[in-house]
């Protein structure tokens, strides 16, 4: 066996996954077809809040091809309540969450009936024949009013729309001082309220699930990020023994948190398959995705920051209202709480207070969306640092430099109770400023202001950090999360020396097959091509906690490393036995075991064959080289970076054009720079989209009016800029690979950079904020002083997305 010449770690390997994806040889869930399979279609409520007074399915049952029509009442005894795994407080109010509504619907898009038919078209036809009578109930939409006493209620039986309030106070926790005192003694105080608009994850592959009940086990294929969690939850909720359920996540077309869910539709499909004894498939239309797959963000953020006149920050108080939507899904309540640890960001706040109240409204439930709690926190604090700079008349970068943790201060215990292990904010910032041409653009900005140019320039900064590698199990336990944060891996060295790696993480576009192959090739000294990665099937990969929270490499990758090290340890014993030497004299490098001081050696493949035949094993050593490992991180990892955005704002039209976007990310050691760059690009696109384009808008009845990709404004290539990216590298000390995670960095960092730039461009008009998305209308209104209306004017299709690509180029054309 030959070893690879070039080290695998850090190598820009092109992806193994691509071969099937660029040729159409893919395994999407919707591609599945099984003998006798029935197709499901789901009838959804058009009303945001109503009592179901009657459902008549008689006509629908007679329609061609229809095999069954079920309502919530039909399955009320067996459907249970959809799981919420994160009770953030002991007194959290958790409503019953049926997969099919029984008596009442609480958001427009909630499932009320399901048809099983021989074809998808026949199933959809039959939906039209189902008659449902609704009696309208008061619709609760606005977050502030929903949280107020005396509001109409989403769940009458709970007696309130407030699900829970979670607080952290540095004085109580012993991690810092008293915020009230800091605010009272402030030389400068900045108070702001920001609105994190509601977003839709908008993964490209619509959700799909196939359930086959015909074997000894139920086999479930689902377009999910979390096959292991899904299996556990099906078992715990639907009363089927866990060992009788197998879940497979085949090729999954993106998730971004949107497929980190145990969905009503998965349960409905399971119930139908169990009842009918036939395989069933449900694949949603995009229109269904938009209204029924969970949404993200949606917070009102009230912040108060105190500082000295010289710019030194002295305290930060954060009060959030977070919109849960109508029900608590898998990790809904915990999403805003993840942000609790990140509002202090990279700055040395001596006092910090955080409180978040989770509130029900008659809207689609929210849950994880790329970054989950951390983009919200980063946005707010980075906006606040710019506001503080404006208040003090300082350069916003100088304010940051004055307050951030110096490179010599790591490890650093933060006021929020975390320990940042490593980082170098100076290095990333200096490089980013150079890439952007910061000083030059500041000069141009001054010059444009001076001459009152119609097109004003703004520069936005985001010096962010985030917590990744979810998560140390003990920390999750302290936050009352329902599971641990470990990850598992197995390595099987086959008799021919080829290697199978089983991982518990569940990729859906990230490129784990490539990156994991590189790690194992590097560790075991085998060719990259000789490594096969197995994942996403609870049968072949029985243990795992799946993919989200930038955890796969920092936690799952480490499990792979540990398993590889166990393989080598075992192989060393066998090699020593074969070469008749002491184990202490055996060195492993480049895929071979050599005897120190001699030219004798034996390759890993030869040891694998010897372990397979097992004719001559050392005393007490079992045949085979296979090894399992579970890694539970001791700490989170903390990627950071400096993102800079220069925008041109047309002050006559309010149009924003990104002139340059430059970012330098420090994600620790890099396994594959190609994949890392791709993750940054994609993250930037989503973060920029939040700043400029996307918003889930509801009308006064609670109907989603941005219910297509075009109305919601998922940006096209014509809407987005070229990004200039670079990296600095400080190793994470919390794992042996030194990796930090990169899946969410771009999304977390970019939104405030863009909005800060927009505000910076028009601050001299007296503008302190532009609500997201910064559509031309809102920017123009902010400039012209019509700020009150700008703050309350949601616009479906009001931005500059795919509808009019030329419009978004603005001044350039």
């Amino acid at each position, binding site marked *: 066996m030959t070893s690879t010449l070039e080290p695998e770690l850090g190598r820009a390997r*092109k*992806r193994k*996954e*691509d*071969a*099937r*994806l*660029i*040729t*159409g*040889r*893919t395994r*999407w869930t*919707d*591609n599945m077809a099984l003998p006798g399979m029935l197709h499901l279609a789901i009838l959804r409520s058009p009303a945001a809040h109503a009592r179901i007074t009657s459902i008549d399915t008689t006509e629908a049952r007679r329609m061609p091809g229809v095999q069954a029509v079920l309502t919530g009442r039909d399955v009320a005894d067996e459907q249970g309540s959809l799981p919420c795994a994160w009770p953030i407080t002991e007194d959290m109010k958790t409503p019953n969450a049926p997969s099919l509504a029984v008596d009442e619907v609480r958001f427009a898009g909630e499932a009320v009936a399901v048809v099983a038919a021989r074809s*998808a*078209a026949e199933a959809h036809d039959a939906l039209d024949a189902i008659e449902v009578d609704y009696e309208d109930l008061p619709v609760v939409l606005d977050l502030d009013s929903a949280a107020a006493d005396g509001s109409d209620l989403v769940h009458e039986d709970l007696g309130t729309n407030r699900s829970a309030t979670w607080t952290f106070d540095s004085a109580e926790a012993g991690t810092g001082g008293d915020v009230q005192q800091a605010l009272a003694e402030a030389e400068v105080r900045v108070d702001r309220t920001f609105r994190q608009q509601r977003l839709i994850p*908008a*993964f*490209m*592959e*619509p959700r799909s699930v196939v359930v086959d009940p015909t074997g000894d086990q139920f086999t479930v294929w689902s377009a999910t990020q979390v096959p292991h969690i899904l299996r556990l939850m099906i078992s715990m909720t639907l009363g089927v023994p866990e060992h009788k359920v197998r879940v497979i996540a085949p*090729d*999954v*077309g*993106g998730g*971004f948190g949107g497929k980190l869910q145990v969905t009503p539709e998965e349960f409905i499909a399971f119930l139908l398959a169990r009842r009918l004894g036939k395989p069933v498939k449900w694949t949603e*239309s*995009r*229109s269904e995705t938009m209204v029924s797959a969970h949404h993200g963000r949606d917070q009102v953020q009230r912040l108060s920051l105190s500082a000295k006149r010289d710019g030194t920050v002295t305290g930060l108080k954060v009060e959030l209202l977070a919109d849960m939507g109508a029900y608590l899904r898998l990790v809904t309540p915990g999403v805003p709480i993840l942000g609790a640890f990140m509002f202090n960001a990279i700055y040395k706040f001596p006092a910090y207070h955080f409180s978040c109240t989770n509130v029900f409204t008659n809207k689609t439930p929210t849950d994880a969306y790329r970054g989950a709690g951390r983009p919200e926190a980063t946005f707010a604090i980075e906006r606040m640092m710019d506001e503080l700079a404006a208040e003090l008349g300082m350069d916003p970068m100088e304010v940051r430099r004055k307050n951030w943790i110096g490179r010599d201060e790591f490890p650093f215990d933060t006021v929020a109770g975390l320990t940042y292990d490593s980082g170098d904010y100076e290095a990333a910032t200096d490089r980013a400023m150079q890439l952007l041409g910061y000083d030059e653009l500041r000069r141009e900005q001054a010059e444009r202001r001076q001459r009152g140019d119609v097109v004003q320039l703004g520069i936005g900064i985001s010096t962010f950090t985030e917590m990744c590698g979810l998560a140390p199990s003990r920390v999750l336990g302290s936050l009352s999360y329902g599971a641990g944060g470990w990850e598992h891996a197995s390595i099987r060295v086959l008799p021919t020396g080829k290697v199978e790696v089983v991982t518990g993480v569940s990729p*859906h*576009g*990230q*490129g784990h097959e490539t990156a994991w192959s590189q790690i194992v090739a590097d560790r075991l000294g085998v060719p990259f091509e000789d490594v096969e990665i197995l994942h996403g099937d609870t049968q072949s990969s029985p243990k795992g906690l799946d993919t989200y929270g930038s955890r796969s490499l920092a936690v799952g990758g480490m499990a792979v490393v540990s398993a590889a090290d166990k393989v080598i340890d075992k192989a060393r014993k066998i090699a020593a036995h074969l070469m008749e030497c002491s184990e202490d004299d055996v060195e492993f490098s480049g895929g071979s075991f050599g005897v120190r001081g001699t030219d004798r050696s034996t390759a890993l493949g030869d040891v694998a064959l010897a372990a397979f035949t097992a004719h001559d094993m050392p005393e007490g050593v079992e045949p085979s080289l296979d090894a399992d490992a579970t890694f539970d991180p001791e700490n989170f990892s903390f990627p950071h970076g400096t993102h800079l955005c220069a925008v041109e704002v047309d002050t006559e039209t309010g149009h924003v054009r990104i002139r340059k976007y430059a970012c330098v990310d420090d994600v620790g050691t890099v396994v594959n720079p*190609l*994949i890392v*760059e*791709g993750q940054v*690009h*994609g*993250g*930037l*696109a*989503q973060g920029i989209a939040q700043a400029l384009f996307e918003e889930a808008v509801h009308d006064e009845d609670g109907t989603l009016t941005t219910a*297509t*990709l*075009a109305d919601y404004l*998922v940006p*096209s*290539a*014509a809407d*987005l800029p*070229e*990004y200039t990216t670079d990296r600095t590298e400080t190793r994470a000390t919390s794992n042996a690979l030194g990796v930090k995670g990169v899946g969410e960095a*771009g999304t977390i960092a970019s939104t405030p950079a863009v909005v800060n730039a927009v505000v910076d461009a028009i601050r001299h008009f007296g503008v302190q904020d532009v609500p997201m998305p910064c559509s031309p209308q809102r920017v123009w209104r902010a400039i012209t002083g019509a700020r009150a209306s700008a703050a309350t004017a949601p616009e479906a299709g009001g931005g500059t997305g*795919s509808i009019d*690509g*030329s419009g978004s180029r603005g001044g350039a054309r």
Partner: protein
Amino acid sequence: MPRITVNVDGTEYTDDVEPRTLLVHHLRERLGKVGTVVGCDTSNCGAFTVHLDGQSVKSCSVLAVQADGCEITTIEGLARDGRLHPVQQAFHDNHALQCGFCTPGMIMQSLDLLAENPDPDEQEVREGLEGNLCRCTGYQNIVRAVRDAAGQMRPGAGPAIEHTADTPQQRTGSEQQSEVKQP
């Protein structure tokens, strides 16, 4: 039910179809050509792009009966004799895909774009792909890939140009041209 005959990726299929059947559903459900995917129901996403008699169309906006007698090329029919089409190769080389769900449509639309404009600049690529959404890549590497493919396919780029170690042997300019225009 009307009977239609379509030639998909070089194979002829004759079937009775319901008049309302969309081409993409005919391809996926009847013919098993599941390489072409459905990403939305409003023709915004472009994931379902195929070539109909050499022109890119969104197969979700074409009825199967409209394709009667037509030649259709899908993502599954691009590679010849085990060799990737230069656009496929360029998507791989430039890491222009992540989850890969938009990729079939992106590649088919890129081919159409390059047939019309063999040497597009960055802005022309961005505008040419405006009807195809990607949620993973942020588009930068897709733009790179299309421009890379344009360079590879340009007449005279020739077989001598070795793009990367594992890039298959280049095809001749005329081969490439004919594929673009008459898939």
